[in-house]
Structure formats: structure tokens, C-alpha cells
């Protein structure tokens, strides 16, 4: 996880966690993040695209165009094996980060 860039790391973890469940397209990902965090991580949808394209370029996710009948084709993303490993590594890094931060804040509150 790129703790140097918390915002990006956070978006990556949210995206990877959703894609671990099922393949999704950009709009769905944005709406799901909003719905599941009850608006806490209400991202402007445009910010998802550099994240999605970076993960795709790194081979962590894979994009696939799917024709939607009367609708225009949509690009669905799914997690790759490398992406799954990266997601687990990411979650573990976040847990470590939160635990360290929490210890630090508790110490200060004493």
C-alpha cells in the first residue's frame, strides 16, 4: 500500500474490495462505494478512472467490454490473481496503519 499517498491508497482499497465480489463498471463502483459507506467516501466519479486505469496497467484488474443490448457497451473490471494478492496485502497494511495510528492517538489522549 502506498501510505505516502493515503487518498489514492484508500480509493484503491475500496475499488479492489468491491471487485473481489463481482465484476463491475465505473458507474456501479462509484455508486456502490457511496451506498456502502453511507456517503462517507462519496467520491466524485471521475476520480475513479485514474485509479482503475492504473490498477489495470499494473495487471491488478482486467477490463472487458460488454455489449448491453440497446445500451452502449460498458467496460467491466474484474480482479486478477495479482490483484487479489495485492488487495490482501493492502488490507493488512491498512490494519497495521490504523492500529499504529490508534495507539499514537491514545497515547496523546492520556
Amino acid at each position: 500500500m502506498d501510505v505516502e499517498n493515503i487518498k489514492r491508497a484508500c480509493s484503491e482499497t475500496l475499488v479492489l474490495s468491491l471487485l473481489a465480489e463481482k465484476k463491475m463498471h465505473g458507474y456501479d463502483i462509484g455508486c456502490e462505494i457511496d451506498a456502502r459507506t453511507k456517503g462517507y467516501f462519496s467520491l466524485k466519479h471521475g476520480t475513479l478512472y485514474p485509479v482503475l486505469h492504473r490498477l489495470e496497467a499494473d495487471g491488478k484488474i482486467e477490463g472487458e467490454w460488454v455489449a448491453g443490448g440497446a445500451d452502449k457497451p460498458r467496460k467491466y473490471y474484474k480482479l486478477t490473481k495479482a490483484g487479489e494478492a495485492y488487495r490482501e496485502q493492502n488490507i493488512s497494511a491498512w490494519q497495521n496503519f490504523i492500529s499504529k495510528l490508534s495507539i499514537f492517538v491514545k497515547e496523546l489522549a492520556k
Partner: protein
Amino acid sequence: MTIQEYLKYLECNLDIPYPARRDFLSEIESHLDDFIRNYREKGFSKETAIEKAISELAMNQEILKDLDEVHAPMVLTGLIGTFAGYIEAFHVAPQLIQKEGSFPIWFVSEIALSTSFVGMLVALFTLVIWYVLSAKAERIEHMRVS
């Protein structure tokens, strides 16, 4: 602003290679369509739905710059592909037609390497040169035999 005008604005402000740029714009178009459909179902007029969709997407200069950075390695690969195409077309192709069957393999490799539109064009140009030179060589051979 219409969707097409907005997509044109994005295209003008993006610096990523052609196939990736086209795919990205299609992706954004379908994203906007979903937003618009959602707002229309909530009772908004078409114009307001478009306005809200563009605002929700919020594709600002910072995001476009981020996308350019993500695709920067592809631009480099495209330039390498273009350079390889040039070398093939003008230096390797004339020699390779002497060895029957070897050139198409080079051509396919070139296509696989080229991620830029220009690289693709050069690769196609290479194939045309190879075809023309092969035909010429065959005619010379035929004239020699007869």
C-alpha cells in the same frame, strides 16, 4: 453543454495515445448515460440531467493529468513501436523478402508491440512495402525463368 461537446472537451485535454483515448471516452460516455438515466428517472429534465451528470463526474484538470501519467508508458511504447516500424519499413524489409516467410512474423510482432495509432499505420505501411517488393521479386524471377 451536450454530452458530445463535453467528450470533445475531454479529448482536447487528454494526452494519451489514440486507442486508449477512444476507449476511455467510450467508457466516460456510458458512465454519463447511466448518470443521466438515473436523474431522468428521478424526474429531472434532459438538460438538467446532463448538467448534473457532468458535475457528478467532475473530471477536472488534475484527474486528466493523472490519467496522462498512467498512460505515459504506453506513449513511450508507441514511440518505440513507431521507430521499430520505420526501421523495418526502410531497412529490414528489403532484406527480409529474400528469406521467404520470415517477414510476416516480424510484421505481427510489430503490430503486437505498437500501441500507438501512428505505430499501427507504419506497421501497415511496412506490410504494403513487403507485398509490393515481394510481387516485384516474383516478376523478376518469372522473367528470368521464361
